[in-house]
Each structure stands twice: as structure tokens, then as C-alpha cells.
């Protein structure tokens, strides 16, 4: 995503004429320093509450930092080496990646399909758009609780529906893979409509005469979709994949509230669906209060996100077949 900087010349200060009056001096000071004054609140607040914590996390991660202890001995990279041998950490990594894969792939495919539907000449267009976006604006915590009940073992609606078609009840909370599916369902439910609208916006920027000439050449709808729409959407698809990667690997609220009872931060008795962020919380806050170890988890999570995002981008570059005409891809990137 390139940033387009404003090409137009900025407003020039008023030209100086004759002797300076106090008002003119004020005006000069004003044009010179006001911009800094205007952006200062962001940088001051972000510096204190955004940048400083970031650097400090790394510093904390190099210490044996117990919240209740009074001194915090420096231990170098010990937290990291311990973490790399910690089976519970790797278990959480596998959970996170598993949930990420089985949520993101169907989600983006469904969003593409949904966007393609919404891109037709529709009656009640706004209503449909609002309907598919509703999941995205609801309270995550509330919805996680509702889905926790829908996926209940005994009286959950999902198992009841499965029973109607002759499938035995599934242990959504105590079976590892089933709990991944349940949590992925929540994530998909929340984000499919949102991504569909992003795709729709990009689709509407594709010139329609491309489709017309393709139709004249005898290409059917499916062929048009895969040969025109998808390649031209590639920048947008990469964008949504990166956003989904960042969001998906940080997953916390849904799996945390999917479980209740004793120690829900573990994501089930056998850590069936404990994500990396939950593992960070378990270590940094109750019950362990080990800030050094928790910080190390946070940094490894960051590394994981960077690695997975990079892999995704590389894969997507290779896939996607035909190269989009350059000017279309550009104009869309500018619009984002």
C-alpha cells in the first residue's frame, strides 16, 4: 500500500511587505509553529502510551520480572530460550494457526462470492449491505457468549440441527479440532460481510466494458469472475489477507469468552483452544504474574505475525494467474 503524498503545493505564507507589525510577527510565528502544535497531541500521547510501552516490553522480556517481587534480575534471553522449549506455548501457536487457517480461507472465499452477488443490479441494495455488515458492528464479547451457547453440548442449537440430519452430538468445547471450528465460525460470521464490502468497493472500480468484451468473446460468468475480477482484485485481496492475518493471530476475545468455568484463560481443560494471546495473559497476569515471560510471548507473537504475513504475500504474488493491467491496480491502491 503506497502512500500518496499530496502533490499540490502547500499554502505559502503571506509575502512580507514593509515593516513588521506585532500582528505580522504573530502571523509568521503562527504559520511556522502551528503545524507542530496541531500534530503534537498525537505524538505526545502516542509516545507515552504507544511507543514507550513497545520498547519497554522488550526490556521487560529480558528480565525475571515477577509482579509481586521487588527486584527484577536481568536474565538476558533466558525467557526466550525457555519459551522455545515450552510445549504449552507451541500448543497455543498450533491452536492459533489452526484457527487462523480454517477461519480465513473460507471467510475470504465467501466474501468474494458475496461481493460478486452484491455487485449485481439489486433491489434493496442498502438493506442487503447492512444485513451482511451487522455481525461486524455487534459486541464481540456478547456474541462470543451467544455462540458459546449455540455450540453447547446438550441443548445447543448447532448440535440439535446436526441431530436433525443424523449427525451425532459434537463436543464443541472439549474436542480440540471442534473447538477450532466453533471459534472460526464466530470469526467468519463477524468478518465475512466486512470483507465482502471491501471487495465490492474494489469490484466497482473495475471498468464494465472489460466484462462486456469478455462476454462478446464468449466468456461465461464464472470465467469472467476468475479471469477478470479476481486478478484485478489482487491488491485488495492481499490487503484483506494481511489485515486478517494481523487480526486472526491476535485472536483473544472470542476464544476467551467461548470458555467459562474454572480457569477459562486456558481455553478449556486441556488448552483445546488457547491462543497465543491467551497464553500471554495466563503468564503475564493471573495466575502466574510473570511479566518477563509474558513479554517474551508478546514479542514472539509479533514475530509470528510478521512471518505469516510475509508468507501470505509471497504466496499470493505467485498465485492469481494473469497479471492485472498496471493502471487499474495502481488506481485501486490509491483509492484504498
Amino acid at each position, binding site marked *: 500500500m503506497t502512500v500518496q503524498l499530496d502533490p*499540490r503545493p502547500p*499554502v505559502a505564507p503571506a509575502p512580507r511587505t514593509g515593516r513588521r507589525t506585532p500582528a505580522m510577527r504573530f502571523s509568521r510565528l503562527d504559520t511556522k509553529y502551528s503545524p507542530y502544535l496541531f500534530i503534537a497531541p498525537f505524538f505526545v500521547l502516542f509516545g507515552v502510551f504507544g511507543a514507550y510501552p513497545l520498547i519497554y516490553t522488550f526490556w521487560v522480556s529480558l528480565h525475571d520480572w515477577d509482579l509481586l517481587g521487588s527486584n527484577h534480575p536481568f536474565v538476558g534471553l533466558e525467557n526466550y530460550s525457555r519459551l522455545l522449549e515450552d510445549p504449552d506455548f507451541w500448543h497455543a501457536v498450533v491452536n492459533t494457526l489452526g484457527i487462523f487457517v480454517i477461519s480465513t480461507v473460507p471467510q475470504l472465499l465467501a466474501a468474494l462470492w458475496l461481493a460478486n452477488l452484491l455487485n449485481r443490479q439489486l433491489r434493496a441494495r442498502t438493506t442487503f449491505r447492512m444485513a451482511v455488515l451487522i455481525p461486524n458492528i455487534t459486541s464481540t464479547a456478547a456474541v462470543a*457468549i451467544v455462540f458459546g451457547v449455540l455450540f453447547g453440548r446438550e441443548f445447543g442449537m448447532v448440535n*440439535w440441527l446436526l441431530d436433525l440430519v443424523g449427525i451425532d452430538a459434537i463436543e464443541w468445547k472439549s474436542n480440540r479440532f471442534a473447538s477450532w471450528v466453533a471459534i472460526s465460525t464466530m470469526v467468519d460470521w463477524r468478518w465475512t460481510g466486512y470483507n465482502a464490502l471491501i471487495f465490492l468497493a474494489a469490484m466497482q472500480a473495475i471498468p464494465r466494458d472489460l466484462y462486456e468484451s469478455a462476454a462478446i468473446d464468449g466468456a461465461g460468468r464464472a470465467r469472467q469472475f476468475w479471469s477478470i475480477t479476481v486478478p484485478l482484485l489482487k491488491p485488495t485481496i492481499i490487503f484483506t489477507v494481511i489485515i486478517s492475518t494481523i487480526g486472526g493471530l491476535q485472536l*483473544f476475545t472470542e476464544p476467551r469468552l467461548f470458555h467459562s468455568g474454572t480457569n477459562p484463560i486456558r481455553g478449556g481443560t486441556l488448552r483445546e483452544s488457547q491462543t497465543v494471546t491467551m497464553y500471554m495473559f495466563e503468564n503475564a497476569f493471573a495466575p502466574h504474574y510473570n511479566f518477563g515471560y509474558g513479554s517474551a510471548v*508478546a514479542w514472539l507473537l509479533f514475530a509470528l505475525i510478521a512471518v505469516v504475513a510475509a508468507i501470505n504475500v509471497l504466496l499470493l504474488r505467485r498465485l492469481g494467474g494473469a497479471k492485472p493491467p498496471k493502471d487499474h491496480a495502481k488506481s485501486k491502491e490509491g483509492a484504498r
Partner: protein
Amino acid sequence: MTRLWAASRLTYAALIAAGVLSIFPIYWMFVVASRSNDAMGQLPPPVTPGGNFGANVSRLLNNTDAYFVAGLVNSAIVAVTVTVSVVFFSTLAGFAFAKLRFRGRNALLMVIIATMMVPTQLGVIPLYLLMTKLNWNDRLPAVIVPALVTGFGVFMMRQYAGQAVSNELIEAARVDGCNTARIYWNVVLPALRPAAAVLGLLTFMTTWNDFLWPYAVLNDPENPTVQLALRTLSDGYYTDMSQVFTGTAIATLPLLLVFVLFGRQIIGGIMEGAVKA
């Protein structure tokens, strides 16, 4: 052309199905919230509203362990304060980045964009330690102050100000003797109003919805946000599910209200590519 883009019946059927799937969990939340607890053990599950909403609400409000009302009040305070602040500081900085000339402008803008890519998780622990030092743990400033500015807001307002405010207008105001602050207030802010409204709506919803950071820093059960009150409810009261669902329904209501009133603007904002994170 028309034939190429016409929506078939199948299109409508698929869209209606998608719409029903989208709305059903929320609808069902209100169904359970309006029924007695027996509804939870019924098969097939009931799908029409009952008449117990009032009773459930009063049980929820009288539940002294949940601090639900305190949560609602706290969430309102937090969300409104954060929204006003984000909109104000974002329009201010966005105007400066789009229309004013100063040294280091591009570099500073890159810093702001970079801040949008950093995961919140990374800052949770040191932020917690910082709040301990400031003695803000368990108090609302801990949730409010770190959220007062967002890189996303500044970036969004910069993009919009670039198109919405013409340089001629600013020059004319300067010739008329306006200083930069007055130009912001009398010329730029009115022009930015539509985008500022979208930013405000999104900020309000995100803040109302936030769970992770309040969960870390507000440990006093008597002083929760509404989402934390829901957590307390659902962790402790599984037997009284209609009460829990009443809570989730009430916590979702402000968001639904905002969406019904301003849905078009929100969709417009997303489709313009304004929404990035």
C-alpha cells in the same frame, strides 16, 4: 449490459440466506433475553420472543455481583470521551499533514502510518506497569487516556482533508486575517464533517466493544466496562442464561442503534476504503 449484471432469483435467494445467517444470532439473543430460563432446555429451541424481558432486566439490575449498571455508565463515559478526543485530535493533525507546510512532514506521517501496524498485544504488559506507576489501575483513565489518539484517525482525516479542503479557501481565509487555529475551526472542520462523523461512529463502536485492554487493567469487579460485566455474568451465572442474554442484548443495543441510524455512512466509509484496521 443489463443482462450481464441482472440479479437472478438465485442471487436474491443466496443474499437473503446470507442476511438471515448474519442476523440470526443477534435475533436469537433477543429471543432468549425475552424468555424464562426454561427456554434454554427446550428442544427444538424457541425462535420467537417471549414476554419475560422486563423480569429479566430487573433480575439483571438487581444482581449485585454483576455491576452491570456501573459497567454501562463506565462504558458510556469511556466511549464518549474517547470519541470526542479522537475526532478532535485527528482532524487537527490530519489538517496539518494535508494542508500545512512544515519540516519533517513526510517523515512524521510515515511514523503515524507505522503505528497502525503494531499489534496492541505487544504493549499490554508495559502499559499495565505504567498504569501501576501512575496509580491508574482499576480506574477509568487507564482505559481512556491511551485511546485518546489513533494513527488510523489521523491518517483517515489526512486523506480526506486533501480532497475536501481547497488550498484557495485556506489562502482566502488567511488573506482575510484568520490565523491557523481559526482556519481549522471555521474552514477546515466544517468541510471535514462527513468524514469526521464516520470516524466518530467507528471510534465509538470500537471503544464500546473493546475487551482486551480493559480486561487487563480493570481488575476491580465493582468498576467494570459493560463488556467486562458480561464476562463476569457469563463466567458465573450459567444457570441463569436468560439473565446473561439480557445483558448481552443491552450491551449490543447502543451499537445496533448507531448502526440503524448511521448504517449508510458506515458502509460508505468502509467502501471508500477509509477503514483499514
